[in-house]
């Protein structure tokens, strides 16, 4: 019998804790630069598409009766085929991790430090990340149980700080932004989404319970709602200048009366978001490690996460100047590859046979 690595509740919590935290830093500014005051709608569009695929993956996985994604592929296209597909997914997860890690690094350096060198301030993250990857899906689930409260409280705190100076008339009129801008905003920022990828890799590793689909979709909807409210509130505070507020968590509370009287209490929320983000940006690398382990046929080895994180650390260290170039490449081209692996591959699963596998 398979030992389940994560529970339905933990999947829900990981969506709220990690997938929410990862979208809190630059997403608002980038979406605002394309979709203007309709940034919240771009976010909702992305959430809607992702939500639909999450529902679809959860539904289709019922057909495979407890098999995980690798086993489904193995049954249908053989061991070698499954390994090839997983190698491609490993690359996808690796690339998916790149921008959020670089974004977090920039956030940390610009908002929390002034002169400290990167090698000292951010590089220790990869030691943690390697450990987190080594611990795998179980760590995602259990850490989400704690981190969810931190993330939710921090986001609610930031929204509360925003409301004081928010002028929601900035979001009006609704109709003068072309739909193409809204959709373009959605596509260009979709690298922060594709959360259905994680669900695809969770299948077979959690025990189905009553209302599994409703619970997971509910959690995803809460995440979507919080992001939509946060982006809208940020735009309501900064108006057209939102696209300049790259590090929203330390900007939204800047002019709050509480901040002026007591001190930069918004930094506490920023620190908390940064804490949740430490896990969140490592999550794609956890799945990358999982894929690589499947490809090379090992399990629970220390070397795989160490190598993956070392490569990522080197990449971050030597390419940090090219954030915008990489962002342009990933949001312009790589997102279509993401879309293929997050949306098209699950659709192909419709034609795969059920089968069974000896464990």
């Amino acid at each position, binding site marked *: 019998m398979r030992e389940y690595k994560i529970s339905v509740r933990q999947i829900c919590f990981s969506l709220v804790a990690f997938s929410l935290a990862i979208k809190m830093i630059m997403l608002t500014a980038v979406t605002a630069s394309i979709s203007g005051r309709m940034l919240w709608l771009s976010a909702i569009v992305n959430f809607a598409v992702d939500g639909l695929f999450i529902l679809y993956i959860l539904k289709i996985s019922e057909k495979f009766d407890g098999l995980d994604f690798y086993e489904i592929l193995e049954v249908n296209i053989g061991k070698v085929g499954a390994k090839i597909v997983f190698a491609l997914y490993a690359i996808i997860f690796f690339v998916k991790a790149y921008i959020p890690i670089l974004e977090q690094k920039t956030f940390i350096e610009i908002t929390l430090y002034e002169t400290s060198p990167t090698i000292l301030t951010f590089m220790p993250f990869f030691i943690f990340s390697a450990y987190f990857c080594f611990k795998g899906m179980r760590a995602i689930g259990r850490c989400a149980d704690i981190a969810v409260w931190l993330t939710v409280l921090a986001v609610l705190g930031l929204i509360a700080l925003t409301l004081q100076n928010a002028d929601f008339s900035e979001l009006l009129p609704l109709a003068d932004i072309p739909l193409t801008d809204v959709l373009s905003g959605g596509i260009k920022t979709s690298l922060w989404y594709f959360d259905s990828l994680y669900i695809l890799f969770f299948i077979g590793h959690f025990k189905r319970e009553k209302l599994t689909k409703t619970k997971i979709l509910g959690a995803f909807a809460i995440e979507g709602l919080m992001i939509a409210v946060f982006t809208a509130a940020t735009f309501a505070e900064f108006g057209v200048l939102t696209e300049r507020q790259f590090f929203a968590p330390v900007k939204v509370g800047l002019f709050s009366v509480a901040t002026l009287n007591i001190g930069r209490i918004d*930094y506490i929320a920023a620190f908390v978001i*940064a*804490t949740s983000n430490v896990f969140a940006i490592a999550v794609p690398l956890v799945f990358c490690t999982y894929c690589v382990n499947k490809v090379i046929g090992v399990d629970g080895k220390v070397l795989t996460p160490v190598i993956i994180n070392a490569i990522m650390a080197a990449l971050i260290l030597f390419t940090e100047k090219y954030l915008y170039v990489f962002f342009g490449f990933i949001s312009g081209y790589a997102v279509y590859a993401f879309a293929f692996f997050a949306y098209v591959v699950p659709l192909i699963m419709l034609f795969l046979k059920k089968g069974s596998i000896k464990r």
Partner: protein
Amino acid sequence: MELNANINISKLALKALIGESDDIIFFDFTCGEYDACAVYVDSITDRDMLGMEVISPLKKIEGKHTVKELSKSVTLANVELVSEIRTIADLVLGGHTAILFDGKKKALSVDLKKFETRSIAEPPTGFSIRGPRSGFTESIKTNLSLMRRYLKTDDFIVEMSEVGKMTKTGVALLYIKGIADENLVKGVRARLGKIKTDGVPDSSYIAKHINERRGSLFKQVGSTERPDVMLERLLEGRVGIIVDGSPFVLTLPYLLVEDFQSAEDYYISKYRANVVRTIRIIALLFSILLPSLFVSAQLFHIQLLPQNFLLTIINSIKGIPLSPSLEMFFILLIFEILNETSVRMPKYVGMALGVVGALVLGETLVHAGIVSTPAVLIMALSGISIYTVPEIVETTSILRLIFLFLAGSVGGYGIILISAFMLCYLTTSDNYGVPYLAPYAPLIANDMQDGFQMKSITDMKRRPVVFASRNKTRRGNENA
């Protein structure tokens, strides 16, 4: 080697094994028609009982008898017949008295051990204003009697064993059948059986041997000096280990949350108990994080400090020759030295030293301009707070040092990273199959009835799910 019918040969064989020590007595007397010899360790034998209940009745016997018949004249319950020289030697060393008879190939072994023990007193740790005053002692018998006083059920099981090649220390495994998970009992029993050591001076030795993660900084075996706490833990589904010679009884599996619960919480109002538990958590966070946050704020994140507080700090650090992190390390070092000295010194000198250290030394350091007042204040607060959860002081004091080092070198993000690392480590750690951070990671709603916050004991109707007890109900069910 078997006993010889010739008592002199048997005595020689025994002397060869254990006779080198001067406190091993070979006392010759006559028993009816037989020459007899009582062999015992003088320092651990109840000589009054030996004289009155063993030797005196045996001396009154007349005629010929078998050893079994002779044993009936001994007016004590713990009498057995033995014939192996090695067994006799072991029993004598364990506090038994062996009676050898000339012409017999069997000897009597009578349990007459008597160790000097202190009387039952209030434990120095886990003190409470309300609740029982009794605490465990160094005697395993006394400790078992304290537990038997509470648990008058045949489901309460005590499994005795010996650990230690030289010390042969008595170890009792305690659990309640039907409540403790059988796999847990098996696991602990197996671990105890695997211990290979020459001696066990204290239960902490056993704790170190049965740790699942031996290199871990974090405590993995619970301990208590209070029988009422032990009872509560057994009723929750844990198992206990009493070690002869130690007043600290071990409990397994250990959850981090249990050290935030004091015995008194259950005897007072739940509202007060919850306030106190919250204070303990805040104090623990203070003790670990406050010095490091203060240092990182000064070095890297000055904007975090409110303006007025910032001005106070700026005024107080003028002319201080040490950097913020070195300053904090220096105060921490002084604090640890004072702490270590006051513990090791004789009690009254220690108290005086504490006063001299805290007041005079601290004051002088500030006036001399070596350290700043806020830094002393922060470290004092941290130093006091650490003792609100005394059971994990060893861990928290090291964590404080690690956090301080990272805050001084990496700053706030270092604190974030080490916190995340700790969280990941603790959430994925299991202790005898039980998650270390339960009931919070994984979240177990039922078990949160007695976590960092607690319900009234009348509302704690079910046993903690995490211990996988078969009997799940504690209150409101006749099966409970």
